[in-house]
């Protein structure tokens, strides 16, 4: 196929060329960057929190007034929950991953240290904590029942042992086993000995300490204490597989019934906590996918519209070419090649716009550099889209009978 006659024909309608080219260029820039954001959000949301989310739920208890004995209330509730049919394990906890509320503390390696080595999320649990969360122990051991104490309100000391995540262990003690090492949750107090390391446990906050790298979201420590906030206590329950919803209802009913001087706070499954935690990212993903689809549709329809017009406008010329011996397929090829050229020109401009937009996102919104694969993929996709869009009108053009040339308008 000769490209030169197509080019010279195009040059005679520069405006249309510029318009379609600009449209393609902008489409490429938006689609590539939006897809990149979408894939990063999907990656963020697909991270494993390190706990069993399928069978677990949290439930809370808020007692009335100064006379309420939160300490015995927690003990009674734990005994009741653990004896409930269908419960695999239960433990008191202050928070769970992704819930966006919790307690964090700076961790130091030496008492005289001025700034802490890392920030860690604190999970206050008892000896069943590991089993209830469904976390995997990588090294050492978890807490024993005799290590568990009750954290009195206003008490700011820390118990002598802790279990930390592998991510935190690698940060604090790179290259060596953390078990048996000491750290300080409060460098004016006594040290804590690491007795075990769990494989993975996400902190409650999405994007926690993000300036310290993606691992910081897995800097968590377990504390062998039952804790209450005023009269509020929270429990995590893991049901036997498949029985979560039934157990959740039973637990709520039983807790309401056993102690009347309190409110049983809305039980929430970990699935729901995850959905709410990632709500913003999920919404962004859906919105951007919507924009991408709409944009591709508008661009494709625009190409169809423009190509149809050109075909109609050139009916007579097509007829003349056919009369002079051009085959149907050469007419088809003419329009396909024309679209290929226009799209390519648009894509060339699009590369500049794509990286311009990416630069703007990096400068203002902590985005990362767009990998080349997105640009390449986007360009190929748009070329194919253009060819697909022009195929209909081009086929129509190829069906113009040669006799048209002989007719006057």
């Amino acid at each position: 196929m000769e490209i030169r006659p197509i080019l010279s024909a195009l040059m005679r309608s520069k405006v249309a060329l510029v318009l379609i080219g600009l449209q393609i260029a902008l489409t490429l820039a938006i689609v590539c960057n939006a897809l990149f954001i979408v894939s990063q959000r999907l990656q963020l949301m697909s991270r494993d929190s390190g706990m069993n989310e399928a069978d677990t739920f949290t439930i809370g208890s808020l007692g009335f007034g100064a006379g309420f004995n939160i300490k015995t209330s927690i003990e009674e509730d734990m005994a009741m929950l653990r004896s409930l049919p269908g419960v695999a394990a239960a433990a008191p906890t202050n928070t769970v991953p992704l819930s966006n509320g919790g307690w964090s503390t700076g961790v130091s390696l030496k008492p005289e240290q001025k700034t802490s080595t890392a920030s860690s999320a604190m999970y206050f649990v008892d000896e069943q904590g590991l089993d209830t969360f469904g976390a995997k122990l990588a090294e050492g051991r978890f807490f024993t029942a005799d290590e568990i104490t009750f954290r009195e309100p206003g008490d700011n000391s820390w118990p002598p042992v802790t279990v930390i995540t592998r991510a935190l262990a690698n940060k604090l003690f790179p290259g060596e086993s953390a078990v048996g090492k000491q750290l300080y949750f409060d460098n004016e107090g006594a040290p804590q000995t690491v007795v075990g390391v769990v494989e993975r446990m996400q902190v409650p906050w999405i994007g926690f300490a993000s300036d310290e790298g993606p691992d910081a979201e897995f800097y968590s420590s377990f504390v062998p204490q039952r804790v209450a906030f005023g009269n509020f206590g929270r429990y995590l329950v893991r049901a036997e597989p498949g029985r979560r919803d039934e157990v959740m209802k039973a637990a709520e009913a039983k807790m309401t019934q056993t102690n009347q001087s309190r409110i049983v706070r809305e039980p929430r499954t970990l699935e729901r906590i995850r959905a709410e935690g990632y709500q913003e990212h999920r919404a962004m993903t859906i919105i951007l996918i919507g924009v991408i689809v709409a944009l591709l549709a508008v661009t494709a329809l625009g190409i169809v519209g423009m190509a149809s017009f050109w075909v109609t406008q050139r009916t007579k010329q097509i007829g003349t070419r056919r009369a002079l011996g051009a085959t149907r397929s050469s007419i088809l090829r003419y329009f396909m090649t024309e679209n290929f050229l226009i799209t390519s020109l648009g894509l060339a401009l699009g590369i500049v716009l794509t990286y311009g937009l990416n630069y703007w996102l990096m400068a203002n919104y902590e985005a990362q550099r767009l990998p080349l694969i997105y640009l390449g993929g986007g360009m190929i996709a748009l070329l194919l889209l253009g060819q697909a869009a022009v195929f209909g009108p081009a086929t129509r053009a190829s069906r113009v009978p040669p006799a048209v040339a002989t007719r006057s308008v």
Partner: protein
Amino acid sequence: MFTYYLQLGFHSLKRNPLLTALMIFGIALGIGTSMTSLSVFYLMGSDPIPWKSDKLHAVQLDNWSKEEPYRTPNEPPDQVTYLEAKALMEAGKADLQAAMYKVVWPLQPDNAEIKPFSSLGRATFKDFFAMFEPPFKYGNPWDAAQDNEHARVTVVSSALNEKLFGGQDSTGKKVRLNEIEYTIVGVLDKWQPRVKYYDLTNGAFNDSEEYYVPFTTAIELQTRPSGNNSCWESSKPGWDGYLASDCVWIQFWVQLNSQAREDEYMAFLNNYVNEQKKLGRFARPLNNRLPDVNEWIEAQGVVSGDAQIQVGLSFAFLIVCLVNTIGLLLAKFMRKSSEIGLRRALGATRGQLFTQHLVEAGVIGISGGLIGLVLTWLGLMAVRGLYADLYNVARLDWVMVLTAIGLSITAAVLAGLFPTWKACQITPAVQLKTQ
């Protein structure tokens, strides 16, 4: 003449309904997308109390650790300690001032049919009401004496009043919070600031409170905050240790009625901190701030990065839609070259042809804009579905409706102008010759 052009326009549009639909749909989609994101963006960042936002100031004092700032590069904490809240309230140097914090208490209704529920409240001072101006339906705020006496009084929201008392005047009645009885002194009318600017630390788009009680009462009852509490060093044991600590957990707002008052207050704060430095507190360099409402909303990053990216991308999308429509209109007008040539030959002036085609472009633009408004409304419903928090900001307000109409007319004229101009360049002779 205008109606004749309208007729011509409609006739021309009807000749090619698919293409017309394509152009209108393109503009509508572009307007719908960009107006949806712009509405959310605009309402997130818009001034929640425009008549006095420059007079209301958050108080920030830098009592953080000598070793590192509260937030890099050198941001002071967004809340204050109990020690400062107490000292600043006692000094009373501002025109109005209120310390406040978030509490969650169980509410135990007398009516046995309503089960006890946990309920969101705020412990604050009487000036809260004068500063943020929630409308009162019944009664009044409590007074200074009641602040001083730790009185068991409360102001309740209209929603709570509806729930407990069926919406009637409940002033003088009692409400039981965490086993303590409070006398209702005031009932608010519906009040939900779009952005909960007086406590951004605990959620910019959270619901407003169900009740307000004196700060002094909540302190006497040893109520710990239900909101954020940040410490750079551990507090001493017990409640008194907590109150004496450098932990920040209280929002502190002042009203300063003039620039002079603001300068005076800043001088007072600096003086206060310098006095504290002599006592060994406030180890960091002087870094006190008095951001007003809009500066506070900006500094606390209320408008999320995602919302800004959405606005940027949706406007780029609008440009694509416009370019698309320009191309299609151009193609359409060019195809009518012979008709235009004929009309020119029969005596139509360029001006008349220009008006005629601009009317045609305008019809497309305005229809696109109107459908775009409907799409915006649908888009905002979708945003509410996607972001549970954005219920109060994902709505169509009249500024945005006017902007949408203006934007679609501008878009249509922009899209129509160039093709129209091109159409008018057609010389009658050339077109007639090819006939």
